[in-house]
């Protein structure tokens, strides 16, 4: 589903990604961990071209997406993105946050989008918040709305960029629960996170990134219990 070949990204003199090769298959839940500055967020942002790769190729369903001729907006409609800081639209109600893109991009009629919004809000447990504004919600609620907003476009892939890092500890669980049920429904997911419990329990594959490359990759349980790479061992000994 997603193929990444020799992906490199530099910001000025700083080389953030130094050649990443990955193949993410349909239905996989790939969890990316690693120390800060390791390039994991940049890797995720390259996947939907919020960052333009400096070098290398990214394919989604065998279509090369980092090509000037490609319609980036069409590609992005296949991928939902959830941000660390939610990025809900503060001037719109929760309902309108969710329906804005499907209606504007003519993917759905107003009625269809409305039905979809109600259905999704039910799924993330916020059916009663449709008419509220983002400022009236807690962090955990905002992030669940953000997930619903991304799902409203019916994406094939969901990207999560540290979705629980900006939350108070007691709100982390409610967001992870939503992500877990999404994974259980068979959604292809790439999750950058520091939640090792989630990685172990929900991830089908774990990538450990450091210094701009994937140092180690495999079944989460194996890596957690028996890390092969020295850097992985060091990192895990600090966070576990």
């Amino acid at each position, binding site marked *: 589903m997603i193929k990444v070949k020799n992906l490199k990204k530099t910001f000025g003199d700083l080389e953030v990604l130094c050649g990443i090769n990955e193949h993410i298959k349909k239905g996989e839940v790939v969890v990316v961990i690693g120390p800060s500055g390791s390039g994991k967020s940049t890797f995720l942002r390259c996947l939907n071209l*919020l960052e333009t790769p400096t070098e290398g190729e990214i394919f989604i369903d065998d279509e090369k997406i980092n090509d000037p001729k490609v319609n980036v907006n069409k590609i992005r409609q296949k991928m939902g993105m959830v941000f660390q800081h939610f990025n809900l639209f503060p001037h*719109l109600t929760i309902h309108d946050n969710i329906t804005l893109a499907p209606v*504007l*991009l003519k993917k759905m009629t107003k009625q269809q989008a409305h039905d979809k919004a109600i259905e999704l809000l039910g799924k993330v447990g916020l059916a009663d918040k449709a008419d509220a504004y983002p*400022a009236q919600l807690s962090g955990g609620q905002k992030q669940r709305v953000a997930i619903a907003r991304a799902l409203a476009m019916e994406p094939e892939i969901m990207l999560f960029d540290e979705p629980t890092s900006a939350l108070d500890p007691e709100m982390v669980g409610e967001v992870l629960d939503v992500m877990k049920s999404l994974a259980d429904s068979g959604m292809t997911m790439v999750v950058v996170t520091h939640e090792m419990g989630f990685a172990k329990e929900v991830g089908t594959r774990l990538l450990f990134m450091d210094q701009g490359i994937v140092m180690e990759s495999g079944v989460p349980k194996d890596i957690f219990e028996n890390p092969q790479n020295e850097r992985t061992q060091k990192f895990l000994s600090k966070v576990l």
Partner: protein
Amino acid sequence: MYMVTAFSWFSDFQESFEKTFIREDRYKLFVDGILLTLKVSLLAVAIGIIIGFIIALFNLSKHFPLRLIGKVYTDVIRGTPSVTQLMIIYFVIFASVNLEKWIIAAIAFGINSGAYVSEIIRAGIMSIDKGQTEAGRSLGLNGRQTMMKIVLPQALKNIFPALCNEFIVLIKETAIVGYVGLMDIQKASDFVKSATFEAAMPLLATAVIYFVIIKILTICLGLLEKKLRKSDVK
């Protein structure tokens, strides 16, 4: 004694009021002046917003030539007096164009206001977190849709007080249209002053008229702002 002074003051007032407003139907000059000021201001505000918006987008553009145009425009307008601009536009640029006088004046004020509005809008757009644009783009919206539906509505709310301020300045600024021979409130009072040889009454009336117009506008804009702030409720 006091009675007499008060009485003579009152009769003076009455006489000068009569001279300034009633005799020869001079109040009509003020009424026409108010209408002209309002006409010119309204059209100028509209032109100013359109130009300001375009120049703001130029200034934020990726393309250097557009940024250059925006920069030169803002520099020239801010660097020259508005009376000079008005007179150049009226007597030079539009000298041979067959347009109604007040429209030419409104264009001149609009061009002037556009430079200031553009800086306000640019600041407003830049004040919106980059994450908002990213969220819009990640949903598949293109750059224009993201700007129109996500960034601008929030930016406009933030800059609303600054824009109101600019409009108030603009209304008062139109008091210089007398320089190109248009009869606005200020010019009407000048005219009456030189006909009656009395300065206090027409000038004070002019001040009161401007004050009332702007007070009414401020109240209306205040109500509008309250409505815009609806999503801020906590």
